[in-house]
């Protein structure tokens, strides 16, 4: 089936196309060079902006902690019932609802309406991988993938403590990526979640785990080396030490230095950019940290912008979430030590614009967006739902693109917070091209997805069309058209069809000698057979299996 989009303006930063008037044509889910052949369908776009489908590289969309969050957030669910879907021709779709933690179905639908077609779950626990993949199979309209949380698991800490050779670490990481059908490695509070199981309440970058005597720095550098040598395209995706703690700016700067020039992605950087200046002992270190990011081209970041309103925070970082549970609103929270693997903490939270800390968090996030110079190394996230639901992205885009709007919002916030941010002095406004980089081209590049995030022949026909509108929030709230794998799924901001997505995984070479060690470990320590821990390809996406990216290792 040949489909042609006529009269649009193409925004494809991967190929330097900035609002180029040209047709976009695709056949059976792949973009092709424009032809004069008769198309099965043509869409006249009248100058609308055409981009690749959005790619969110960090959004909590699946896994046990999201179900715990749903369990805690029944009020949120009730307040956001199933939407009427006038254009949807299917049977009752079991769509579900919710805003802070939408159901799998609603996640797929709401993302699609915003023009997103690929989303990565950034914190899948190995022990919960089967569940996360079952849930992802029920997310329509999105391709997905998941980053495996490593670095708090007792197996790797034992290896590191025992001084195991890097090859053995690499073999373990390679095995785990395959066994859990993961796309990248995430580290959450390196070694800290594990240390909490031994009753440590904090763990700094160079502080030793009370049991293993391994430091977060060692965990980090060991795993950076593993993914580098295995050739995993996405660098270590790091949720650093001391999340949310005033003064964690020093930890963050030290962590960047600890990478020693090797590639490292710092996630939800906003939560790690807090100083201790001022009467409240809480201040913005965004400028210092952005300067360090600018000076270190090996570093990439996503922001984890705070957006005001009710949400729920869900993280593998039980150590930090336990510390924060007193801030829960409503007053309830769940924590869990998990399977010699990691943990999780779920804390409902309302970010209030009149609250000094919350208002300053908001400003810190925007400062980071505006002070980090290279749009290819910073990504648009709210750490959904931790800083706010992904459905606030259009508002965030307007904050970035429209200085007057931003300053008007700033003027309504907590007065003390206003005095503690340099946001009002920052004149930068993001261009449309830069937004396309942040949300399309750059994530595809850093994830190693060669056929996504652009609109050249060979690319997957994941395409978002937005009507030009000076109000950027309105423009990005409702895509005019969205194609998933060549299939029209959204028209005029409404989901009109459901397309099955795929799940991206990586595979690496690894020394299978690790398997007998793992068999023993699972039998004796975990109490579950390694072969039952492992997921087969057929367990993904209702039997359709994953989309595999084979890594080429050897680099170091």
């Amino acid at each position, binding site marked *: 089936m040949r489909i042609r989009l006529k009269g649009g303006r193409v925004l494809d930063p991967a190929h330097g196309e900035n609002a180029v008037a040209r047709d976009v044509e695709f056949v059976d889910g792949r973009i092709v060079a424009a032809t004069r052949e008769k198309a099965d369908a043509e869409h006249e776009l009248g100058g609308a902006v055409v981009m690749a489908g959005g790619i969110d590289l960090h959004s909590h969309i699946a896994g046990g902690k999201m179900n715990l969050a749903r369990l*805690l957030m029944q009020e949120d669910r009730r307040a956001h019932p199933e939407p009427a879907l006038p254009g949807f021709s299917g049977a009752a779709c079991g769509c579900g609802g919710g805003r802070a933690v939408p159901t799998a179905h609603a996640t797929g639908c709401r993302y699609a309406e915003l023009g997103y077609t690929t989303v990565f779950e950034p914190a899948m626990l190995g022990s919960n991988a089967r569940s996360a993949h079952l849930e992802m199979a029920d997310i329509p309209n999105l391709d997905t993938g998941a980053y495996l949380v490593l670095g708090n698991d007792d197996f790797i800490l034992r290896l590191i403590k025992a001084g195991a050779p890097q090859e053995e670490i690499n073999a373990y990481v390679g095995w785990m990526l395959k066994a859990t059908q993961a796309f990248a490695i995430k580290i959450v509070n390196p070694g800290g979640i594990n240390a909490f199981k031994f009753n440590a309440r904090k763990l700094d970058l160079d502080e030793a785990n009370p049991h293993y005597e391994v430091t977060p720095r060692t965990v980090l550098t060991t795993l950076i080396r593993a993914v580098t040598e295995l050739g995993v395209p996405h660098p270590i995706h790091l949720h650093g030490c001391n999340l949310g703690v005033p003064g964690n700016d020093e930890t963050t700067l030290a962590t960047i230095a600890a990478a020693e020039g090797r590639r490292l992605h710092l996630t939800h950087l906003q939560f790690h950019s807090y100083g201790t200046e001022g009467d409240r002992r809480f201040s913005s270190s965004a400028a210092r940290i952005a300067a360090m990011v600018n000076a270190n081209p090996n570093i990439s970041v996503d922001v984890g912008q705070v957006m005001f309103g009710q949400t729920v925070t869900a993280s593998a970082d039980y150590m930090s979430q336990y510390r924060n549970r007193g801030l829960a609103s409503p007053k309830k929270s*769940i924590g869990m030590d998990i399977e010699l693997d990691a943990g999780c903490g779920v804390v409902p939270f309302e970010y209030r614009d009149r609250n000094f800390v919350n208002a300053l968090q908001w400003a810190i996030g925007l400062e980071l967006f505006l002070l980090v110079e290279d749009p290819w190394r910073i990504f648009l996230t709210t750490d959904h739902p931790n800083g706010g639901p992904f459905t606030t992205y259009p508002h965030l885009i307007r904050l970035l693109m429209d200085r007057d709007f931003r300053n008007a919002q700033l003027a309504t916030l907590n007065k003390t917070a206003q005095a503690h941010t340099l946001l009002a002095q920052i004149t930068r406004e993001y261009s449309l091209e830069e937004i396309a980089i942040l949300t399309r081209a750059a994530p595809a590049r850093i994830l190693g997805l060669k056929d996504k995030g652009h609109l050249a022949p060979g690319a997957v026909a994941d395409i978002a069309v937005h009507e030009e509108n000076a109000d950027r929030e309105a423009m990005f709230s409702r895509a005019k058209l969205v194609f998933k794998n060549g299939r029209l799924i959204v028209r005029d901001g409404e989901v009109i069809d459901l397309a099955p997505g795929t799940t991206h995984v990586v595979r690496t070479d690894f020394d299978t000698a690790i398997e007998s060690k793992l068999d023993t470990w699972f039998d004796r320590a975990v109490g579950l057979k390694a072969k039952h821990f492992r997921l087969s390809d057929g367990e993904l996406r209702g039997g359709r299996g994953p989309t595999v990216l084979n890594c080429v290792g050897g680099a170091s």
Partner: protein
Amino acid sequence: MNSETGAGAPLVVKDVVCGFCGLGCDDLEVEVAGREVRPRASVCPEAARLLRRLDTGAEAGPASDAVYGRARKLLEAARAPVFAGLGADVDGGRAILDLAARHGGVLDHAVSDGLFANYAAAQRTGWLATTLAEVRNHCDVLLVVGEDPSASFGRFFERALPTDPLFAASRQVIVLGGTLGAAARRQLGAAGVTEIAAEDLTAALSALTQMVAGPAPRGTSFGGAAADALEAAAAALKAAAYAVAVWNAAALEDADLIAERATRLVDALNITTRAGVFPLGGRDNIIGINQLLLWRLGYPLRTAIRGETSEHDSALYATEAALKDADLLVWVSAFRPEPPPAFGGPVIVIGHPDTQFATPPEVFIPVGTPGVDHAGTVFRMDAIVSLPLGALRVATLPSVAEAVRRLEPVR
């Protein structure tokens, strides 16, 4: 699955995954010969009973097209169906949910009373929990509230407190309001066991919780439990590196109060040391079906789909209450021959072929058992780990998913 065959010998299948009680054992050994399945090793009494299959030649065969047709008619005519039992693997659950989304109706599981007793605590205050592998290796003091867990979870102590933990320096079990049987004591080996008798378990646990949280209540006994025994237990819990509280809500009166007190106790312990609740439950994949509902509908079990929306009410949409306003019961029980509850209206049973009925249902669709006849996924009681069940023999009956998909309208 590892298999060994000898000439003419039955097939020995090792590392069989068990989906019955929710403990998630995956090291069972069974013997398969043709249609017959015989448990051999690492099998608790309940699994032995539910896995055993004899080729009597009298097993129910697959339902005919006419039976499916009758079921479709009943579904089409129903205005307020209740989909209950829900003893199915995750795929079976998906099919049932799709069917309920099409026809509307209430969704509940046969053993959800315990789950919702626990949720009464979890949803009000939340809780600090742990999972099996953590218990195995960290737990040095285990508080059992109520009956011996081995009664419902035959290999509980063997699985939760093996004798060679990675971290726990010692093992102590405190049983409040119950006693451990011979099987439990055998599994526990050298672990210390303290049994504290109690008449009113809630009162005894409240006092223990208060002793841990402070200030200690005054009195010589609480709910029939001696104060000094409770004080010694509180001291042991506070001195533990990693205490764990377990209870089986399905077997307790006032289970919601027990869950709430245990949650508070663990909260209090975590201020200075580490602890977690480990609620027991999870029979017949209730956890898996509940997880499925949470990600598909945003609500747990006891949810009704009406028109285009769904709503949850843990009282109104409990099976017994929901049946009062129902005009059709669809009962699903693939793991065990559990008959449906009494109901005045028409009943469709999608169930175990050996199910015995007091009153024959309007429609009976025999289905295979997950983990015996069909592969499938089930969740463990902690809701974190899920397991792949395998098939032990060639299925002659459909799976729940296959049977339910045949109930969709013929186009």
